[in-house]
Each structure stands twice: as structure tokens, then as C-alpha cells.
């Protein structure tokens, strides 16, 4: 073995200063952490659209008999309602809510319970003293929205 300086480590046929080796090691760790983060994020994104228990995330909502905003109403649900998602089909989730089975727009279904206005401000919300017809119409409202977003150029 040839003589090397004190700051080098001999690897087979390659001189590798300790500093370079340390930097390489740190780079490898950061790459693997980033990769792990990406795997976690993509798993979370996948979990969002996997069957199982999800939650309704708007004030009120409509469970439709078939896929379609104008399809017959099966029942009206409120924010935070747990839903058993059977499967996601394009823009819709096929769900079971209590004894009812039907369809809800995918964008209104969350994997985790989201903050609900009725829960955050219950006494203020109760001032409205909503009638059943108002709750029904509020549930219909979200399916009538045309939702969009401008993208970053």
C-alpha cells in the first residue's frame, strides 16, 4: 500500500479525502430522505382516493342515486359526516352513508376530517335555525358550482 496523507482513506485504487467522503455520505442521506418524503407524499395522495372511511368536507352535501349533479337525491349530509367509500369512479365517489348508497363528488370527500364551520362556530351557526328545506338546498348548492383555478404559467 502506498503512503497517503493523514486526511485520506485508501479505497481500492482510489484516493478519497475524508472531507469528500463525508460530503458524499451526507448527499446520499439527503437524497434518501427526499426520496422517502416523496414516497410518503405519494402514499398520502393515493390514500386520499383509496376505498375506506373518508369524510364529507363542505357545509352540507347531497348523496345522489347516480353519478351526476342533477341525479336524484338519496339523502343530505353535513360536514364531517363519515363515509364508507366503496370506490372512486372518475369525478365521483361511490359511497355508503348509514343505510344509504350513492354518489358524491370526489372533490368533496377527504381522507381526514376537515374543519367544519358548524363545529368551529356552533352557537353562531345555530342562530340561523335552518329549516329542513334550507338544509336540503344548501346540500344541492355545491353540486351546482362550476369550479376552476388558474394555473401558474
Amino acid at each position: 500500500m502506498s503512503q497517503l496523507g493523514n486526511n485520506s482513506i485508501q479505497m481500492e485504487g482510489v484516493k478519497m479525502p475524508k472531507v469528500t467522503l463525508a460530503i458524499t455520505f451526507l448527499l446520499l442521506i439527503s437524497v434518501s430522505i427526499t426520496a422517502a418524503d416523496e414516497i410518503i407524499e405519494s402514499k398520502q395522495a393515493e390514500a386520499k382516493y383509496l376505498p375506506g372511511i373518508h369524510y364529507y368536507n363542505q357545509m352540507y352535501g347531497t348523496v345522489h342515486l347516480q353519478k351526476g349533479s342533477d341525479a336524484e337525491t338519496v339523502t343530505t349530509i353535513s360536514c364531517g359526516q363519515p363515509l364508507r367509500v366503496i370506490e372512486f369512479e372518475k369525478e365521483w365517489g361511490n359511497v355508503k352513508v348509514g343505510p344509504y348508497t350513492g354518489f358524491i363528488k370526489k372533490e368533496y370527500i377527504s381522507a381526514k376530517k376537515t374543519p367544519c364551520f358548524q363545529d368551529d362556530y356552533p352557537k353562531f351557526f345555530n342562530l340561523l335555525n335552518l329549516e329542513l328545506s334550507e338544509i336540503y338546498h344548501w346540500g344541492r348548492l355545491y353540486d351546482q358550482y362550476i369550479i376552476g383555478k388558474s394555473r401558474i404559467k
Partner: protein
Amino acid sequence: MIKFVLLVFFLIKPIIAAENKFENIKSILKNDGLDALADQKKTEEEKTKSATLQKTIQRYNVPDKNQIWSFISEYWLVRNSPVIRWDFEKPDYGIDSSFATFLEKINIPEKKFKILLVNTTAITHFALPSNKDDLLFLLSVPFIKSMDLSKTEISLLLYEDMLRVQNDYFTEFAKTKELEDLLGSNFHQKKLGKSIIDEVIKKYDKIIFDKGFSFQQQFQVTTEMAKILKQDPVLMASYQKLLEKIRDLIQSQEEYKLYSKIYPSPEMQLKWILPPKKLL
């Protein structure tokens, strides 16, 4: 007398005996930490009571100005569902993608919006107050069909409404002093009725169906539009065409004769955006 003293003595004796017994054992109890345990339980009980009270008080929280407007606007939509008729079957006009493209073209990225089509001539177009970073538009299908508006013209109409709502014209008119004082506060142990919301809903009705916007507000919005669109002659020409179509519509169709009461006046808007004619 002696009998009395003896009576008192025999009555007090058990009490004194009990006290002596306690005094004897007191130090043992103290060494065992029982008094500390009693204190700890008392403190925990007080903490639990305080936490329960806090939770009760929190239930009386009032949303702040960043959370109230979407709630009130949606409540107004629900209340007026039979009048403005937003619950009807309609085809996909592609307005979402065309408006998104328009916003990107004029460099407004990452803007979320909701459009609610209405099947009435009672409203032509409006942007309702929303929470921060939200946009909520109403757009009449009979109105846009009467003028056969293109997607670009519809986008320009929506953008005009967007400027109005961003200039706070609606909220400045609709908010009451009572509501403003209440926002972000707590009304535990105070009287609060539904009238506070009903008063704001009345103001919504007033501005949407009766009062509309002032000439000054229209001038401000029109000049803002002109400033943004002058970079793009094609968009500017479309905006001019839109105003001409509206002008012609309100002159020819009875059901839109009150349009200028809400949006004064397409004729004036055209004058404001067109360059002054040179005198020969």
C-alpha cells in the same frame, strides 16, 4: 352545679378524644403524603372545571372577517333559491377552463373560483363576497344567451365583477355596524339573535336587486379594466364589443331595462374606454 359540670365533661370527652386520636395520626398521614394527594386532586378538579368552562365559552365564538362572507353569501343563495333558480339542469359550457385561461393570460395565477349559473333574468351577473382568496360568481344563462356572448366576453364580464368584489364595494355596503363589532369575538352570556344576519341579508337583496353600483364605482372599474386590457388590443376590442352588446340588449329588451340601475351605464363605459375623438 357539679352535675352540670360532669354532664359537660362527659359530652366533651369523646370530642377531645377524637381530636387527640387525629393529632396522633396526623403526622403519619402527612408522612404518607395523603394531604398532598388531597391537594393534587383538588387542583385537578379545578383544572377540569376550568377546561370545561373554556370549551363551553369557545362554542360561542363568532367567525372573523376572513370566514364570514362565504357563509353569508351561501346562506343568501339558499334563501333565494326559488327566485334566482340556480338548481337546474345545464350543459357544460366550458366556462371554467376559458376563465382560467383568461386569468393566466392577464397574469393572475393560482386563483380559485366558483361560478354558479342561474336560470333567471332577475340577476344578470354578480360576484358575491367570499372568504379571502375565494371568488364566487353568479351568471345568468338567459342573459349570456340573449347576447350570444363568446367565452372571451363572458370571461371579461366575470373579470369586471372580480374587480368590483376586490374593491370591496359589496362588503362595504352589506356589512352592518353590529356585524362588524361582533366579528372575531365571543358572545358567551350575551344576547344575540338571528336579526344580525337577517339585516345583512336585506342589504344583499338591496344591492343585488335594487341599488347596484354607483357611477363612480363603475368609472373606477372600467378604467381599471382599460388599464389592464390596453396591453392586449384583441382583449380590448372584445371588451368594447361586450359593452356594445349589453348596451343594445338593454335598449331592445324589456326584461333588462333595469340593468343600468345596477350597472350604470354601458353607454358611459364605452365613452370612458374609447379614446377621445380628435376635432378636425
